[in-house]
């Protein structure tokens, strides 16, 4: 990184001279203002989750509640089988992520590095499934899962999500960025394609694996329509569906809704903050190579 942008931004913003730290002040101001826009909805959500309905709807609304209503969180537990649904969410998220990592990295490798007839066409066809709105797959996928006898099971929820075109795309980009020489060396050492893939190449695409993992985790955790349709018992539903059910019932009980969604989102944020660096690195790499 050079000071290209520094100079440029600093000049745009403040017409100040060169390398003093002060020249960053306008940049910080802009970034903080933007950052507040990013964060504020979350802060407000948490504040509302500890408030009451009438305070939220007051004019002007009370930002800081008179007293902290922790009871909103307790009533979420009484209105949802929260722990059950939480575990379903964890279960389906782990299943999808693990299987996707395996399937997508293998396919990504093949599309990146193996030469076979129709590869380009096949890859294009694979990406084409991203262009169709998910809702139009609903009935067809339901009928497949039903004929496999998997309704009402975690397998039924996760199965269609195993096959991800976007995941393959990310992994393909990851493999393409690795130098060809590595493979050649492996081949000279007598590795077959599987060994080359598994022993040599796979360990090198960790950032891409993280990228696929985080996108899968997010999507799986937040996925709504599909699990809603394939599950019927409250205990076999993931949290996203539980929250939607609650929202349908208590749409204008804002405080309760905010408490419920805070609880549903918290695990993802905790996960993210605990592995923040790798996640950002992974995603960054994915896009970069794409």
């Amino acid at each position, binding site marked *: 990184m050079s000071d290209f942008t520094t100079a440029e931004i600093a000049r745009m913003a403040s017409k100040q001279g060169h390398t003093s730290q002060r020249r960053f002040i306008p940049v910080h101001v802009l970034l903080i203002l933007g950052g507040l826009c990013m964060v504020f909805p979350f802060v407000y959500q948490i504040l509302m989750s500890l408030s009451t309905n009438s305070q939220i709807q*007051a004019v002007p609304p009370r930002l800081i509640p008179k007293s902290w209503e922790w009871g909103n969180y307790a009533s979420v537990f009484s209105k949802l089988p929260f722990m059950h649904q939480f575990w379903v969410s964890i279960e389906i998220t782990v299943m999808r992520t693990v299987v996707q990592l395996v399937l997508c990295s293998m396919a990504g490798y093949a599309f990146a590095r193996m030469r076979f007839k129709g590869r380009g066409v096949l890859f294009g066809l694979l990406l084409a499934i991203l262009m*169709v709105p998910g809702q139009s797959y609903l009935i067809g*996928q339901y009928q497949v899962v039903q004929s496999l006898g998997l309704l009402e099971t975690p397998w039924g929820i996760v199965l269609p999500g195993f096959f991800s075109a976007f995941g393959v795309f990310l992994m393909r980009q990851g493999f393409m960025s690795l130098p060809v020489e590595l493979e050649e060396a492996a081949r000279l050492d007598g590795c077959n*394609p599987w060994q080359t893939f598994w022993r040599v190449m796979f360990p090198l695409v960790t950032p891409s694996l993280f990228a696929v993992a985080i996108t899968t985790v997010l999507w799986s955790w937040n996925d709504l329509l599909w699990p809603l349709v394939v599950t019927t018992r409250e205990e076999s539903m993931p949290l996203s569906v539980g929250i939607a059910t609650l929202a349908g019932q208590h749409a204008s009980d804002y405080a309760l809704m905010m408490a419920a969604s805070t609880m549903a989102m918290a695990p*993802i944020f905790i996960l993210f903050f605990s592995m923040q660096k790798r996640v950002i690195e992974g995603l960054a790499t994915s896009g970069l190579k794409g």
Partner: protein
Amino acid sequence: MTEVGARDGRAVPSPGSASPSGRRRRGSPTSVGAWPVAFIGLLMLGVAVFYYWPIVKNLITSFQQTNAFGGDPQFVGFDNYTALFQDPGLGRAIVNTVLYTVILLLGVPLSVAISAMIELKGLRFKGLYRTVYFMPYLAMPMAVAQVWKILYNGDFGLINQVLKGLRVSNPPYWLVTPWLALISVSVFGLWCAIGFNVIILSSGLKSIPVELYEAASIDGATGLKQFRWITVPLLTPSIFFLTIMTTIGGFQLFDAIYAMISRGNPVEPQTRSLVRLFYQQAFVDSNQGGGAAIAIVILAMVAVVTVIQFIGQKKWVNYV
């Protein structure tokens, strides 16, 4: 879309490939018998069963008239398409979808500016900024949509409270005013998307080799000139990637309007997107053939736009 594949082994090169190690050869070293089948067979089988089959079934249904539950199909030729193109709602849905997509695309240059600032050399709190801008991407869309709905509320929403505080008389009812409602939803969509953009672009920026700027500085180019002639060109692959992803995502607008603009909202009919139209036909009106036709039209439109983007990229995307 075959363009992607046809690119043949060559990484969609990126600023990263500007570095010497990134220079890679064309072609694929491995080409052996049945191995590809072993590597992609299972995946393609799953894709065929869970995606191609529904699409094919959908295509067939689009030429049929069925009962409300998909039974009793009758071949009707292009009737469903004819009816669709005569539906006055279609034009508006296309306009709405395109408008939403365009606003989302405006987020790309905005994200370029944000990430350029974050990645300024010597700036402190980079990591914090990256995290903060990334956070909306993590949120459960259904849940944060409710927060935004409250923020937009005409009576007690915080946005209008602030405007009133600034002496704006009669601030608008954001989600109940024609056009403004769709724009408000788009701003929410933008908020959700910006984090992903910033992360992708930040890494693009980081990989621009320092030497380029140093060389430019020696030649006397500074500031905006460097930004214009070095940064932007070298970011174009990332920008292109985001453009493709944003367009595909924009055309699938449904959740955000479904969550924020309820059925009783007077502007609801004027804010429908293409996918909302599909939902209406297939699940509310029980017109499976009509719904299937919309799905095919969406597929065709996205495919055309994507192909155009891939053709157009040759004019502006720089692969070093």
